[in-house]
């Protein structure tokens, strides 16, 4: 193998590793399988209605604790979080670690692909009707 070919092979290998690493850090989410993941939340949440937990329509871009008429914990309301893919990624992995004192008594979605699909589903949901 010439040194040119060797460095090309090394570069290809590095590029592949970089792609794999990026994928491991944040897998691409798909809203379609996210529907089934969201069913895990349906004891407490729905897109359109406040229940034990707040409604999820219009979530992305909204400050945490921002649904009018829902009674939040001070911990979540004062967290300073604005919901984005990144902040949801952190919160949904381990809600009580991300926001100690939150009233959402749920361990979280530990699988990165399931979490990404769930967030893609939340991001794709229609805006609130009111």
């Amino acid at each position: 193998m010439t040194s040119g070919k060797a460095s090309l092979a090394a570069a290809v290998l590095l590029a592949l590793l970089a792609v794999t690493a990026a994928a491991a850090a944040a897998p691409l989410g798909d809203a379609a399988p996210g529907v089934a993941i969201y069913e895990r939340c349906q004891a407490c949440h729905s897109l359109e209605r406040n229940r034990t937990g707040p409604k999820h329509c219009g979530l992305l871009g909204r400050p945490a604790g921002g649904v009018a008429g829902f009674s939040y914990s001070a911990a979540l309301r004062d967290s300073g979080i604005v919901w984005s893919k990144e902040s949801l990624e952190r919160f949904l992995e381990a809600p009580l670690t991300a926001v100690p004192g939150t009233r959402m008594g749920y361990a979280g979605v530990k699988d990165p692909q399931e979490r990404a699909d769930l967030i893609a589903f939340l991001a794709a949901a229609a805006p609130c009707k009111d």
Partner: protein
Amino acid sequence: MTDTTVLLPRRSFFAAAGRTTLSAGAVMLLAGCGTRQAAMAADPSADANILNSALGAEQEAIAAYQVGAESGLLSQPVLDLAVQFQGHHKEHADVLAKIVRDLGGQAVEPLASYDFPTDQLKSEADVLRFAAGLEKGAVSAYLGAVPLFAERELAKAAASILGDEAMHWAVLRCALGENPVPVAFVS
């Protein structure tokens, strides 16, 4: 799905089952989670917090079964079944509220009104599917609560309720003519 009754045992079965399960579950839970153990919990207020979110979901389930029972859409033996399941949720809620208070917390109250999608409930199957969705969600909610408790007896109590919700979910799926146990692991 028009005739759900063919898939279910006779009515008398549910009546008898209701009587025997009533005290057994409550006694078992309270024995494990009485005041003495509760006082020893590592982080009572965090545990009470988790129990309160489960309590909120139970209170909603009680109200949802009430809507189902009063809808006029449920025939026998499905109606008896709904009333029996509602009774279980009442038992869960009573036990959860008691433990929250034993831990020094304040048990959440049921909402003044629940905004159920009643416009979508037009047949027995609609009501069953609505209830099945709530029960499936309850299984997931308890599964998400079990690893969080500082006090392991509370994790056990939550797992005990999880098992009951999973049975409800399976029977409702059966009544809908669906595979009652579609997966080896709940999530």
